[in-house]
């Protein structure tokens, strides 16, 4: 139980590390991020929305991962966001789009698309483990509470 709890904290910390770093580096170099987003093979009308939605959702996920009550939501959010990034990376690597843009985001921009895919897949796996552990923990807590309730009745 204790081991699983420590693992949950470590997984949350790793995801927070990734999301806080990624969002902050986008905000700190916003003009470059905007240009790189505009460079992506997505509809150009999406750029003004995506440049705010992506880093803000990363911060929201990080905050929800800190607190016990919202952690499961945070793991689900992280799974969705990392899943979408992974699909996008996969699509880029399959040359689905007419050109391959540069990859963006702080030090992460130095990675190639294949390295990006591996990184994303690892974080998708971490999010899945987080969801499973957090759900199990919740289930155990509910069962324990019910047992206490029943023992008093």
């Amino acid at each position: 139980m204790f081991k699983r709890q420590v693992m949950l904290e470590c997984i949350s910390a790793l995801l927070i590390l990734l999301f806080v770093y990624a969002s902050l580096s986008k905000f700190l170099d916003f003009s470059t991020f905007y240009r790189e987003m505009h460079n992506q093979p997505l509809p150009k009308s999406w750029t003004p929305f995506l440049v705010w939605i992506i880093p803000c959702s990363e911060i929201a996920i990080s905050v929800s991962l800190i607190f016990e009550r919202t952690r499961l939501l945070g793991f689900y959010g992280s799974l969705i966001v990392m899943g979408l990034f992974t699909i996008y990376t996969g699509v880029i690597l399959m040359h689905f789009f007419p050109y391959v843009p540069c990859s963006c985001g702080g030090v992460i921009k130095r990675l190639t698309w294949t390295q990006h895919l591996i990184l994303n897949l690892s974080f998708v796996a971490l999010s899945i483990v987080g969801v499973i552990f957090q759900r199990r923990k919740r289930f155990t807590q509910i069962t324990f509470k019910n047992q206490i309730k029943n023992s008093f009745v």
Partner: protein
Amino acid sequence: MKRIKWSIMSLAIIFSLCAAFATKPHWDCTTLPQYYFNGSVYLPVTQFYGCMQGITTCTYYTNNGGITYAPCTVGTYDGCAGCVVSPSQSNSNSGH
């Protein structure tokens, strides 16, 4: 357990904040006008240029009025990144 939790969390947050500030470009050459090299001369970039993945220099900048140019961004220059020519446009162009 709470102590362990908050130690791990604060460590992660502090580390990510430090990393983001440490890797922030100190001086951004992209704030200056950008030029691309077309094989013989340096030309100003187009409004919606893009840098495709590559190891060569995508754009250059100058801070001495065009006497010398220094590399700025990495990649392969594309004058109109992701521009899609609509069928109506291409038809009207071919008509002339």
